[in-house]
């Protein structure tokens, strides 16, 4: 049996078709206006969960980048302080060699000793380098000045490691302990820089044959050991800086690819959305026109 088509049916089907097209158009319009493919979770539940986890990834990458920048600055401060200390120690070595030669008189040795005393203070000052109000050589006790300039040679910091997280579960130690290089002075007799420099200064001042032998022999040897240690620490700092800068460029790449993935999931394809929109618009218009023509005509028009 063929279906009877009544006026109400016709009108309702035209209305529901128009409604359907308008709904789709308003969805497309929302996409165009927001530029987003997903504006609420029900638009694409799986896509939403992917977008959420990509957002987490992106946020963490950006955080790691901030961490790396922070760590790099810390390394730069450390390196420049170490370079200053190195220069100072080189000068101390020259003075030691000059003072150790028998030709140097007592007054020259006294002058060298006085300069070395000053160099010691300068080394301690270098070790008091700070970054953002925090002493970089004091372990984790960054609020405490590690060496008192003009005071005791005893290291006042602790042996804690300061680490920066540069990736998921990857952290890098960015601090160098003052105590490992400079030690705690003569009282500690640890053979570290301050201890050796104090010994040299003392030997220069007294100038006895034994002391002069010590200056030429063990003192110079111990100073060289410390200089080697200093060079090694600077190399480590340089390597860490390299590692941080590699991490930085890797993080930038990850950020870029995550942003792209996120955009693929979340953002509307503008060209496609625009095409959809104009197609829907023309469908809507033809539906309107057809509807107007269909509703208008009836048998009534042809009866007298």
């Amino acid at each position, binding site marked *: 049996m063929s*279906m*009877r*088509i*009544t*006026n*109400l*049916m016709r009108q*309702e*089907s035209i209305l*529901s078709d128009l409604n359907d097209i308008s709904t789709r158009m308003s969805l497309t319009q929302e996409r165009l206006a927001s530029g987003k493919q*997903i504006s*609420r*979770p*029900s*638009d*694409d*539940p*799986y896509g*939403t*969960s992917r*977008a*959420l*986890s990509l*957002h*987490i*990834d992106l*946020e*963490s990458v950006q*955080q790691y980048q*901030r*961490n790396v920048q*922070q760590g790099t600055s810390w390394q730069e401060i450390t390196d420049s302080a170490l370079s200053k200390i190195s220069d100072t120690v080189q000068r101390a070595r020259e003075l030691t060699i000059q003072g150790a030669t028998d030709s140097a008189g007592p007054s020259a040795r006294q002058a060298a000793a006085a300069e070395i005393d000053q160099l010691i203070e300068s080394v301690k000052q270098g070790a008091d380098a700070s970054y*953002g109000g*925090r002493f970089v050589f*004091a*372990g*984790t*006790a*960054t*609020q*405490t000045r590690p060496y008192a300039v003009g005071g005791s040679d005893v290291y006042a910091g*602790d042996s*804690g490691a*300061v*680490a*920066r*997280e540069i990736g*998921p*579960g990857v*952290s890098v130690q960015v601090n160098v302990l003052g105590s490992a290089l400079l030690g705690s002075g003569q009282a500690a007799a640890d053979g570290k820089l301050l201890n050796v420099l104090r010994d040299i200064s003392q030997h220069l001042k007294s100038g006895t044959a034994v002391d002069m032998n010590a200056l030429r022999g063990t003192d110079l040897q111990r100073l060289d050991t410390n200089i080697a240690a200093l060079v090694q620490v600077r190399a480590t700092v340089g390597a860490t800086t390299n590692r941080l800068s590699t991490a930085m460029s890797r993080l930038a790449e990850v950020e870029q690819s995550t942003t792209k993935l996120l955009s693929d999931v*979340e953002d509307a394809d503008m060209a496609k959305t625009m095409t959809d929109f104009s197609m829907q618009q023309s469908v809507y218009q033809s539906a309107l026109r057809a509807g107007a023509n269909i509703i208008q005509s*009836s*048998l*009534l028009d042809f*009866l007298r």
Partner: protein
Amino acid sequence: MPISTFLGLETTLRGLLSEQQALNTTSHNIANANTEGYSRQDAVFSATDAYRIEAGVPPASTAHIGTGVQITDFRRIRDNFLDLQYRAQAMQSGYQGTRSTELGQAEMGLGEPGPTGISAQLSKFWNGWNDLSNDPSSGAARQALVDQGSNLAAAISTLDSQLALVKAQTAAQYAAITGPQGDVVQIATEIASLNGAIARSQQNGDKPNDLLDRRDLLLDRLSKLGQVSVTNLASGSIQVTLGDAPPPPVVDDQTVNWPQTLTSPGGQLGALLDISKTGGTIDSYRADLNATAKTLADTVNAIHATGVPAGVNFFTYTAGSEAATLKVAVSAAGVVTSTTGAPDANDIALQIARLRGGAADKSYSALVTRIGGEVRNAKTSETNATVLLSAIEAHRQSAAGVSMDEEMSKLMRFQRGYQASGRAMSTFDEMLDQLINRTGKVGL
């Protein structure tokens, strides 16, 4: 048997009257073309009983002479099977439509994906820990972290209260529909009174077509609210059961039995009940959110408490209502960053920052996906139910609806019939004129 001279007049009169009644029915149809729930009516013509006359020479054979036409019935054209299908689909559409609207509100409360959602707050919270790990001795970083923790806790408890609000609103809607002035009792009362009127008419042998239309329309409306089953009684009355309510029926002939307790009525009421009942959809969302809040607080606290000073919790909550009661328990100065207590030691802060993307984020993301999925399902099912509903409605309309073209052609048909009957009557008039006025006047 001789035939009355006036038989022809009577026959044409019956023709005129019948055509007139058919015209009346047609204009009734046209007048109700846009009336909701109206079924078109059709005047059923049938020939009246014939007279038996003797014809021919005896032994006589008899013949029948027609006496015209009468309207025996005004048929109400309607397919009851389609009504059943329509009501089943209307129930589906009512259920899914309400579900998608109400859960859509819960979904709006999430604000995902976006910069204001809990997911973004979680990210900022973990950033706060990372920033603190970079600068543990900084008062500013500590304050920022505590603020961000409070924002996160507030976002979680706001979502919880929004979910609670949706639950309260749906419960209120259910109460309004089933309440003393609600739709259910109004529809039921009207059906009961129509039952009375219909039974009385049928007792008198009438066919109360328009009352039946009205009652069917009320049943359609009731079926959007819940599952309706109808039992026809001999008197023309009906019994109506709503959902899974135990006997007696909601409408029993002319009696209304309401309120009743429903547990799973289907339709709009079913959706409202499923969403708002204890252990319903919203309750399970809130349970998931509580689990997220608990996971967040417990995982952060577990690490935070191992630092120096030991045993300090970062978050506090009341068990059972974790999301609503989640709060930051420490001051900015009280935030623990390390196991040594040294100013720049950051092992605890680093460990907590590593919770990013962990159990709490996953648990929340699962909740978002779940709500999104359920709203999407409800929307899709609603669309399907609506499409089916309009297809069934089209079938129903195809049988019961008024077509103007058809009524116009009928109008013409009955008008012509009426005109022809009138012409026949004139013919009889002329015949009688011949008989009465001109017969026997030869030579006058």
